[in-house]
C-alpha cells in the first residue's frame, strides 16, 4: 500500500493551521483550548494511523527550478515517531488545562505546542533535506518559546536562550552536512536526487562509495553527529536539557523527553543505513555510551525531581544513540524499541512529577517521601514506569536494555575494534547501574515515611484529567511489558526494517538460557540494589566533584563561551564602529580592495595578456593627465577657494575628455553641472571659515590606503577592459538601429534616456528632486527661526 499525499499533508498541516487559529479558539473556549488541542492531536493520530502499513514516498513540487520538492516518506520508522508525537500530544493537551489553570499567556503556550507538534510530525515524515532542516529548526524555535514561557523569570529566559543557542547552532552544522550530502548526491544520483533523502537511502551503497571517493564521508558523518548530538543533548552539550526544565511540566514531558530531543536520535536512525560503517560505530557508540553513563551519574547527583528526570532523559537518549551506533541489526532493534519504550515511560514520569509538584507544592527530592498514602493510583502508575526505566524484568525497559547489552557484546564480532570490544559492554553495565539507582530513588518518593517539611501539607488526590494521561501511558508500558512481541509486531519490526542495514526478523522476550547479556543484566540489577542503601553517600560524592573542579560543571563552559563572545563583540564594535567617518571609510575601502584583489588573484586574471584592447586617442590621454594634475592640486590646496577652483579644472578637463570620446551629450551635461557646482561651492564657502587641518599624524596611513585603492582601481581597469567584447555589443547596436524607427529621434543617447529607458530617467529625476527638496528644507529650517 502506498501512502496518500493528501492524508500525509493534512497530518503535517493540521497542527500549524490550528496554531494559527489558537487566539480565536482561546477567545471562544478559554482554558478549555487544551481539549481542542487534544482533538487536533487525535485527528493527526487518526490520519497517521490510517497510513499504517503503507510504505513509500509522496511528493509535492515546492521550488521546481531548484529541484526542491516537499517529499514525505511513510515507513515504519517515520510512522512510529509521528504516531508517538501525536499520541503523546493527545495526553499532554488533555493534561495541560488542569495543570496550567490560571496561568497567563496560554494562547502563546497552546499555539507553540501545536506548531511544535506539526514540526515534529514534519521531521518524522519529511524525506527532503531542505524540508527536514526547516522542520528541525522549527522544533528548536517552538522549544525556545515554550522554555521561555515564564517571561518574567530570568532563569527561564536564560534556559531558553541556552537551548536556542545550542540546538539552533547544532542545526547549522547539520545544514552544512546536508549541503555536502546534496553535492555528492547530485553528482552520484543525478541532479533530481540532490536533496532527496529517500533516493539516497534507496541507493545507500552507491552514496556511501561516492562520499568516500569525494573524501566527504567523515565530514558529513561528523556534521550530522553534531546536529543530532546538540538536539538530543549528548555529552558534552547535554547541559541545556536540565536547564530547559524551567519550562512548564507538560512541555518537559512532551518536548524534552518524548519528542523534540528524540528528533536527533530519530534522524541518526534515519541515516543509519546510509552512513553505517566502522567510523559510525566508533563515533556513535562512544558518544552514546559516554552520554548514557555521565548523565546517569549526574541524575544520581540531582536534588530536584525534574532535574533527575532531565539527566535521566539525556542518559536514555545516549542509550538509543549507542544502540544505533552498533552496526549490527541488534543495534537498530535497541534504538527503535528503546525509543518507543522511553517515550512512553518518560512522558508518564514527567507527568507524574507534575502531579507531585502540583499536589505537594515542592520538587525537592529531599522534601518528598511516603506519598503512597495520599496518591495511591499515582503510586501504582509510577511503579510500572519507574521499574521500566530501571530496566527490571519483566518491564518493557528490560527488553530494550537487554538488546543493548547484546549489541555491545556483538560489536567486537562485527568489527575489529581492539580493547573497545570489552570496554563498550563494561561501560554499558556501569551506566545502567546508575540508572537502577536513580529509578529506585524516584520510586522512593512514594514509599518510606513522610519527611518533616511535608508533614503539615495536606495532599489532595489529583483530578482525573491530570491522572488519566500518565495512567494511559503506563497502561501501554504494562501491555508492552507483558507482551513485548505485540509491540514488535505492531510497529517496532517495521521501524527496524527502515533503520537496519540488513534487517531480519526480530524477537524479544524473557531469557530462558544464560547468555553474556543476561549476566550483564543480572550484574546491573544486583549491584544497583546492593548500592541503593548507600545512595546518600554516592549522591554527596558526585556533588562534591564540580565544586572542586568548576570546568566539569554543566553551565561553566557555556557561560565562558557566551560571555567571551559578548565581550569580543563589544570590543570589536568599539573598534570598528567608533563614530568616526575615517574608520568606516578605512574598513570599507580596505575590505573592498582586499576582496577585489583576492578575486583577481584567485582567478589568475591579474595580468592581462595584452593591454591594447583599448585605444584612446593621445590627446584624450593628455587631457586626462591634466585632470590628474588638477586632482593633485586639489589635494595640496591650502585654502578652500583654491581647492574649489582646481576641482573645477578637473571637472572641465573631464568634459573635454568626453568631447574627445565622441560623447557630446556627456560633455554638455558635465559643463553645466560643473558650472553649477562651482557656483554652489563658492556660495557655501563664503559662509564657512577656512579650516586648517591641525593634525597631520595619519597622513602616512591615509596615503597607504589611498595608494591601495588606486592600485585596485588600476588593476580593475586593466583586467576588465581586457575582458570587454571586441565589437559593439548587440544591445548597443539594437538601440542605435531602433532609435529612429521606435523612438523617433536621431540622438541615440537621448532616445535611450527619454524613451527606451524612460522610467529609469523618471527615477533619476525623482532623486534629483528629492535632493533639491532636502537642500531647500535644510536651508529653510535654519532661516525660518526653527533653530534649536
Amino acid at each position: 500500500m502506498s501512502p496518500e499525499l493528501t492524508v500525509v499533508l493534512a497530518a503535517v498541516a493540521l497542527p500549524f493551521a490550528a496554531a494559527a487559529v489558537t487566539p480565536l479558539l482561546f477567545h471562544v473556549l478559554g482554558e478549555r483550548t487544551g481539549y481542542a488541542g487534544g482533538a487536533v492531536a487525535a485527528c493527526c493520530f487518526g490520519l497517521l494511523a490510517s497510513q499504517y502499513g503503507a510504505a513509500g514516498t509522496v511528493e509535492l513540487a515546492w521550488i521546481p527550478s531548484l529541484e526542491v520538492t516537499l517529499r514525505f516518506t511513510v515507513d515504519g520508522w517515520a510512522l512510529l515517531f509521528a504516531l508517538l508525537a501525536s499520541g503523546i500530544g493527545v495526553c499532554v493537551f488533555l493534561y495541560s488545562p488542569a495543570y496550567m489553570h490560571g496561568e497567563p499567556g496560554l494562547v502563546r503556550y497552546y499555539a507553540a505546542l501545536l506548531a511544535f507538534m506539526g514540526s515534529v510530525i514534519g521531521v518524522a515524515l519529511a524525506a527532503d533535506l531542505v524540508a527536514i532542516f526547516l522542520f528541525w529548526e522549527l522544533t528548536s524555535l517552538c522549544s525556545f518559546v515554550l522554555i521561555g514561557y515564564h517571561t518574567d523569570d530570568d532563569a527561564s529566559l536564560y534556559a531558553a536562550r541556552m537551548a536556542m543557542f545550542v540546538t539552533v547552532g547544532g542545526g547549522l552544522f547539520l545544514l552544512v552536512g546536508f549541503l555536502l550530502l546534496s553535492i555528492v548526491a547530485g553528482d552520484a544520483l543525478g541532479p533530481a536526487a540532490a536533496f532527496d533523502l529517500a533516493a539516497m537511502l534507496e541507493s545507500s551503497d552507491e552514496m556511501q562509495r561516492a562520499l568516500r571517493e569525494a573524501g566527504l564521508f567523515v565530514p558529513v558523518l561528523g556534521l550530522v553527529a553534531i546536529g543530532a548530538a546538540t538536539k538530543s543533548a549528548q555529552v558534552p552539550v547535554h547541559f541545556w536539557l536540565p536547564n530547559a526544565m524551567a519550562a512548564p511540566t507538560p512541555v518537559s514531558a512532551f518536548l524534552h523527553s518524548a519528542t523534540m530531543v528524540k528528533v536527533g536520535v530519530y534522524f541518526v536512525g534515519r541515516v543509519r543505513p546510509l552512513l553505517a560503517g566502522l567510523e559510525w560505530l566508533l563515533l556513535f557508540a562512544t558518544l552514546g555510551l559516554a552520554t548514557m553513563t555521565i548523565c546517569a551519574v549526574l541524575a544520581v547527583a540531582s536534588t530536584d525531581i525534574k532535574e533527575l528526570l532531565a539527566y535521566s532523559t539525556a542518559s536514555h537518549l545516549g542509550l538509543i544513540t549507542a544502540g544505533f551506533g552498533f552496526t549490527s541489526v541488534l543495534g537498530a532493534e535497541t534504538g527503535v524499541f528503546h525509543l518507543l519504550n522511553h517515550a512512553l515511560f518518560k512522558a508518564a514520569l514527567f507527568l507524574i512529577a507534575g502531579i507531585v509538584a502540583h499536589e505537594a507544592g515542592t520538587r525537592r527530592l529531599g522534601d518528598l517521601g511516603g506519598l503512597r498514602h495520599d496518591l495511591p493510583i499515582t503510586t501504582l502508575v509510577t511503579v510500572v514506569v519507574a521499574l521500566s526505566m530501571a530496566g527490571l524484568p519483566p518491564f518493557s525497559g528490560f527488553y530494550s536494555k537487554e538488546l543493548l547489552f547484546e549489541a555491545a557484546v556483538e560489536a567486537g564480532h562485527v568489527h575489529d575494534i581492539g580493547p573497545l570490544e570489552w570496554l563498550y559492554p563494561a561501560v554499558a553495565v556501569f551506566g545502567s547501574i546508575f540508572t537502577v539507582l536513580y529509578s529506585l530513588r524516584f520510586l522512593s518518593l512514594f514509599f518510606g515515611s513522610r519527611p518533616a517539611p511535608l508533614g503539615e501539607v495536606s495532599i489532595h488526590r489529583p483530578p482525573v484529567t491530570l491522572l488519566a494521561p500518565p495512567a494511559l501511558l503506563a497502561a501501554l508500558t504494562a501491555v508492552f511489558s507483558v507482551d513485548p512481541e505485540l509491540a514488535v509486531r505492531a510497529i517496532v519490526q517495521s521501524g527496524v526494517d527502515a533503520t537496519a542495514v540488513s534487517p531480519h526478523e526480530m524477537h524479544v522476550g524473557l531469557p530462558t538460557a544464560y547468555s553474556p547479556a543476561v549476566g550483564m543484566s543480572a550484574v546491573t540489577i544486583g549491584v544497583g540494589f546492593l548500592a541503593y542503601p548507600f545512595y546518600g553517600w554516592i549522591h554527596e560524592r558526585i556533588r562534591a566533584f564540580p565544586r572542586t573542579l568548576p570546568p566539569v560543571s554543566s553551565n561553566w563552559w557555556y557561560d565562558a563561551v557566551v560571555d567571551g563572545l559578548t565581550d569580543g563583540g563589544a570590543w570589536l564594535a568599539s573598534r570598528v564602529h567608533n563614530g568616526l567617518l575615517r574608520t568606516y571609510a578605512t574598513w570599507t575601502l580596505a575590505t573592498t580592495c582586499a576582496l577585489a584583489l583576492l578575486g583577481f588573484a584567485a582567478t589568475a586574471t591579474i595580468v592581462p595578456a595584452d593591454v591594447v584592447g583599448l585605444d584612446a586617442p593621445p590627446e584624450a590621454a593628455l587631457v586626462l593627465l591634466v585632470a590628474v594634475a588638477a586632482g593633485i592640486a586639489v589635494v595640496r590646496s591650502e585654502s578652500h577657494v583654491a581647492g574649489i577652483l582646481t576641482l573645477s579644472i578637473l571637472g572641465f578637463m573631464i568634459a573635454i575628455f568626453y568631447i574627445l570620446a565622441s560623447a557630446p551629450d556627456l560633455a554638455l551635461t558635465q559643463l553645466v553641472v560643473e558650472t553649477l557646482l562651482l557656483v554652489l561651492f563658492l556660495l557655501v564657502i563664503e559662509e564657512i571659515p577656512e579650516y586648517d587641518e591641525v593634525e597631520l599624524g595619519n597622513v602616512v596611513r591615509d596615503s597607504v590606503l589611498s595608494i591601495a585603492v588606486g592600485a585596485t582601481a588600476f588593476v580593475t581597469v586593466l583586467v576588465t577592459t581586457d575582458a570587454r567584447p571586441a565589437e559593439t555589443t548587440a544591445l548597443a547596436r539594437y538601440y542605435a538601429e531602433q532609435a529612429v524607427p521606435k523612438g523617433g529621434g536621431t540622438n541615440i543617447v537621448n532616445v535611450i534616456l527619454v524613451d527606451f529607458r524612460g522610467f529609469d530617467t523618471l527615477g533619476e529625476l525623482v532623486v534629483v528632486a528629492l535632493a533639491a527638496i532636502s537642500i531647500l528644507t535644510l536651508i529653510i529650517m535654519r532661516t525660518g527661526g526653527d533653530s534649536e
Partner: protein
Amino acid sequence: MTAFVLALVVGALFALGTFLLLRRDLIRVVWGLAIVGQAANVYLLAMGGLTEGDFETVPILAGHGVDVPATADPLVQALVLTAIVISFGMTAFALVLSYRVYEEHDTLDVSELGDRE
C-alpha cells in the same frame, strides 16, 4: 599603451579621492566624493570603447531613414549621463549638509563631530 594611461589616470583619481575622503575637514570629504565620482564615470565610459572621434562615431544619426553607422557605444553614454546628474545631486546635498553641520556645531572637523555622539 593608451589603455595603460587610462588605467593609470583612473587609479590616480581614485587614490586622490580616497585621500580626500579620509581628511578631517568635511568640505574636503565632499571633494573626495566628487573626484571618485568623476573617476568612476571615466572608467564606465572607457568600458564602451574609446575611438578617435569623428562625424560617424558620435551617436547622433545624420537623419531619418539613413544607414546606421558604427557609432560609439550609446548605452554607456546614457549610463554615464545619468551618473553625472545623480552625482551632481549628491554633491550638492552633501555640500549643503556640511554647511548645516557647521551652522549647528560650529565645526567641520569630522573627528570632533564623531566624538560628540
